């Protein structure tokens, strides 16, 4: 008897396991190892060394023009460039002076240089065949509708989010990882989580208190690790992968069920790249989310389980109803 029971239990877990493992990750390609560029392969490597001598270091050496004396000075953090990041960014083959004026070769740099207007992404990428798949033109249009583009003085531009010295797109890698979410959110938090930076553009300190502003969201830390700010704050756009229209706060997603349900908005945003062919595959709704080791209540049920659960319950109720009918007839006799 005991072994019967044990084998029943075994069968039960076996079925459960089979059910679950249909979702095995065997089909998911492994994350390609992002080939680290060799800095010395960049045509601008030598030239950049001139600037990086100071900008990659924690200090620079100042020479007195009068006495010839030398003195170490601290390089302010926000002017530091990290070569490992720079040479792994998309523009790693660029020289500093491809984007910055060559007058930066002189030091101290002329104050007037600071008023240079930087190139915009669209200046180089507009109509560019090689990067057509990113739809820069469409992104530009969306960006211009966003709250940030409406700031006075045209102070805001694409570079405010896309660090000119390190940006590399992560959304198109084969597997989504937490670091993609984290790095995307970091783009927002560098301002919205830090008033020192934010105040260069606006005095509204309350916009930098992210934790307080989202206290209505339970498991906040988990959410911010699993979803991007963009999920709730940007309008969806079918044509581009990353929606760039950040809406005013009143239009942000507040309703939990927009994500926590069978047709979760996450599939059109965070998981868009992976969703196209995998939606509802394996009998699991929104399987792409599960492939990412995430589980979103309400959005990740197994159809089979949800339907068979209801069927079993209905059959039980039916059996009870029949039993009841017999009981009533019996009591009448």
């Amino acid at each position: 008897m005991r072994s019967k029971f044990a084998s029943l239990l075994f069968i039960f877990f076996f079925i459960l396991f089979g059910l679950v493992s249909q979702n095995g990750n065997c089909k998911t390609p492994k994350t390609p190892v992002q080939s680290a560029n060799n800095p010395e392969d960049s045509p601008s490597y030598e030239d950049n060394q001139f600037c990086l001598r100071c900008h990659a270091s924690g200090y620079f050496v100042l020479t007195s023009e009068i006495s010839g004396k030398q003195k170490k000075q601290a390089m302010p953090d926000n002017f530091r460039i990290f070569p490992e990041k720079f040479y792994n960014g998309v523009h790693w083959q660029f020289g500093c002076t491809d984007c910055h004026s060559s007058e930066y070769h002189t030091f101290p740099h002329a104050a007037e240089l600071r008023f240079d207007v930087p190139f915009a992404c669209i200046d180089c990428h507009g109509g560019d065949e090689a990067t057509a798949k990113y739809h820069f033109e469409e992104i530009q249009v969306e960006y211009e509708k966003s709250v940030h583009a409406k700031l006075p003085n045209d102070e805001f531009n694409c570079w405010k989010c896309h660090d000119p010295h390190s940006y590399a797109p992560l959304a198109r890698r084969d597997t989504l990882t937490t670091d993609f979410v984290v790095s995307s959110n970091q783009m927002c938090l560098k301002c919205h989580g830090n008033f020192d930076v934010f105040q260069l553009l606006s005095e509204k300190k309350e916009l930098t208190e992210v934790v307080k502003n989202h206290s209505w969201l339970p498991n906040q830390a988990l959410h911010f690790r699993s979803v991007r700010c963009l999920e709730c704050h940007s309008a969806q756009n079918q044509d581009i992968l990353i929606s760039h229209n950040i809406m005013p706060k009143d239009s942000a997603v507040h309703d939990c069920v927009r994500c926590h349900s069978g047709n979760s908005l996450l599939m059109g945003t965070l998981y868009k790249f992976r969703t196209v062919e995998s939606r509802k595959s394996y009998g699991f709704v929104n399987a792409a989310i599960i492939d990412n080791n995430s589980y979103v209540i309400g959005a990740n049920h197994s159809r089979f389980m949800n339907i068979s659960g209801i069927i079993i319950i209905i059959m039980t109720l039916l059996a009870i109803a029949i039993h009841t009918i017999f009981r009533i007839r019996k009591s009448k006799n």
Partner: protein
Amino acid sequence: MSENIYFYPLWTRIWHGFNAVFCLLLIFSGFSLQYSNPEFSFINFRLAVSMHNFSGIALTISYLLFFTGNIFTENGKYYRLKFKGLRMRLWKQLRYYAYGFFLNEKSPFPVSKTNKFNPLQQISYIVATYLALPLLFVTGWALMFPEFILKQFLGISGIFLTAQLHVVMAFLITLFLIIHLYVSTMGKSPLSNFKSIITGWQKVH
């Protein structure tokens, strides 16, 4: 001649009351979460989350009290399964519910001081309280603190497995509850068992 025995001691009745209330809250809020839908929600999602968390915690506490109670009091002995001849006894009881009952046969395992549950009751109570409920608690608490769940187990997302197990067990408990409620109406009279789980006294022959 019928005799009244004091069947359910006060503490089991109190436990059972809490258990019933929180189980029902958990089932309703849980179903609402599992089948959540933007067009129609049975219970508002946020409310359902808080409700589910609160009742889960409360039920765990009440369960732990029951569990210790069963270790230190007489009540525990009714939960010790005797495997010998179990299949035969289960069959007899099942046959009675499905058939004998209608022919006014005598219950094969009439309730008495030493025999509180019939074999079917006993096995379903054991499975519900010693297997399904503990698994529900473990997986439920894990989901409340997902940072402690294994990231991967045999190549599958740990949190996903945990949630799946939680849902399977929840379905089991729901089934148990439905059957439990119905079978409870098959006492002396349809309501007598419900009276006794409240008052503690049960009429037996």
